[in-house]
């Protein structure tokens, strides 16, 4: 750049003196808060369920303790509203536990299937891959086996029949549409 322009930046800024200064003016520069969602942030890394379960396994003990606390409170409580709320909370906790266990079972099944396929591949046979529906069927078979062992199979099947009956009844043509 020519020397003239280099020295121009050292001169004071010249501005118009006729524009009134607004009443509210920035005195200190305020930095905007950067909002991060750790779920979608690259800094958090990739989600690996096994590692996640291992590092946060200490939370299971805390959850158990909290469940016991709520059960005790539920026993002591007299207020109906609060009792309802506590009951809901308890249900939520139990259901979360069950969901976790279900996911854990799924992962285990996946792992066993993979192991099976590796064995077959080692032995030289062609590895076969199951569809999702087939995996669900396997899960159902396991569920039935579990129920049979605990002896609740009959009651489960009855409830299922009742639910199906109500659903089918809904689908039948009603009196109105004659």
């Amino acid at each position: 750049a020519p020397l003239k322009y280099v020295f121009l930046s050292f001169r004071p800024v010249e501005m118009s003196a006729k524009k009134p200064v607004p009443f509210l003016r920035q005195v200190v520069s305020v930095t905007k808060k950067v909002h991060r969602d750790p779920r979608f942030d690259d800094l958090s890394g990739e989600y690996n369920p096994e590692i996640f379960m291992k590092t946060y396994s200490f939370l299971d003990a805390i959850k158990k303790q909290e469940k016991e606390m709520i059960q005790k409170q539920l026993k002591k409580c007299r207020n109906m509203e609060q009792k309802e709320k506590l009951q809901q909370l308890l249900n939520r906790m139990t259901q979360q536990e069950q969901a976790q266990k279900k996911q854990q079972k799924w992962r285990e099944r996946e792992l066993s299937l993979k192991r099976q396929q590796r064995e077959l591949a080692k032995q030289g046979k062609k590895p076969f891959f199951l569809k999702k529906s087939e995996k669900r069927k396997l899960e159902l078979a396991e569920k039935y086996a579990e129920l049979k062992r605990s002896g609740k199979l009959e009651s489960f099947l009855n409830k299922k029949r009742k639910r199906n009956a109500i659903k089918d009844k809904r689908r039948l043509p009603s009196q109105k549409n004659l």
Partner: protein
Amino acid sequence: AAGRREEAAAEEEEVEETPQEKKLRLAKLYLEQLRRHGEHGQPGPGGGGAVRAQPGPDAPCPPPDPASIRVLRGHQQPITCLVISPDDKFIFSAAKDGSIIKCNVACPTGEVESGKRLCVVPGGKKGTEGQHMGHAAHVLCMAISSDGKYLATGDRNKLILVWEAATCKRLYTFTGHRDAVSGLSFQKGTYQLYSASHDRSVKVWNVAENAYVETLFGHQDVITGLDSLRRECCVTSGGRDGTVRVWKIPEESQLIFYGHQGSIDCIQLINEEHMVSGADDGSVALWGLAKKKPLTLVRQSHGTQGAHDLQQPYWVSAVAALHNSDLVATGSHSGSVRLWKCSEGFRKLEPLCDVPLVGFINSLKFSAGGDFVVAGVGQEHRLGRWWRVKEAKNSICIIPLKCRAGAPGSLAAATT
């Protein structure tokens, strides 16, 4: 319609040319005046000021003798500002209670008693602005015209009072500012008054015609000081917004300078091209009109105070510069007035000597002839009561100078 637009454009061109042409015309007039008065052998009317035509070798400056400092008392409350009349005969000072005192400086003949209080305008109680002749709030700034005719004072009640300097009679009142008036200065050679206020605006008034001229905006924080010389431009210091602005009135524009870190509290013009300012972080800066940053910055000019691990620099509460020379004085509450010398074309500021003076130096002014410097001393800072120095006396101190100050290097700096 096209014809009218052309006319308007032509008029605009004419109007744009006028400030430069006007400057040229005024400069030629001034030169004519000087030539004429030079022939007659008289100094111009307040013109030129202390033109130290002999730069000469810089003689070693002896520090002023503390015993020769004259202390003039009279104010009950701390002095906030003072001005010296252009003929160096009278000193006007104002204090926090709104009182204004005119006293005269020593006369060599000894006829008139030196240091005598000639006029006292007492301050009024809060709420008596209508009835009272003087100020009813803290007087923050004063200015005197270059022929010594008018005195203007500004206070915290947003008023500017104009007095006749000889008789101390109140002439006019200028209202219009929306907050305390913190800076006043006359343009040398005219009766145009510039005022700066805590409402961040600079107003231009014409005292001879008792009229308001215009307002200039730009500062982002309260204006703490104002000064002007012969040119139709003034310089203001902007407190916490950290800028020093030079206002060019005919062109309606401002030049913005920045470089201080603390709140810039005081400013004075040394000559038409340079100024000195002081801040509340103890720094003193010399500025030139060509550079947006200070030419030189001296930090902690008065040292630091406080506990061992919590050292705070002394605030610079007043600066003064001997017109067209290289002598600068700064005042704080560190217990002394410090004299500095500008060297290397204002690129360096060297301390010369300290004059011991206890209290808050709220105002400093050099005499036009360079013979003495007057310090307005108070027990508190002129703007508030952060500290109180009990040992100090609310007074005016006249410090005689034996230094023969010279023009710093280039003579070009001393011309308008």
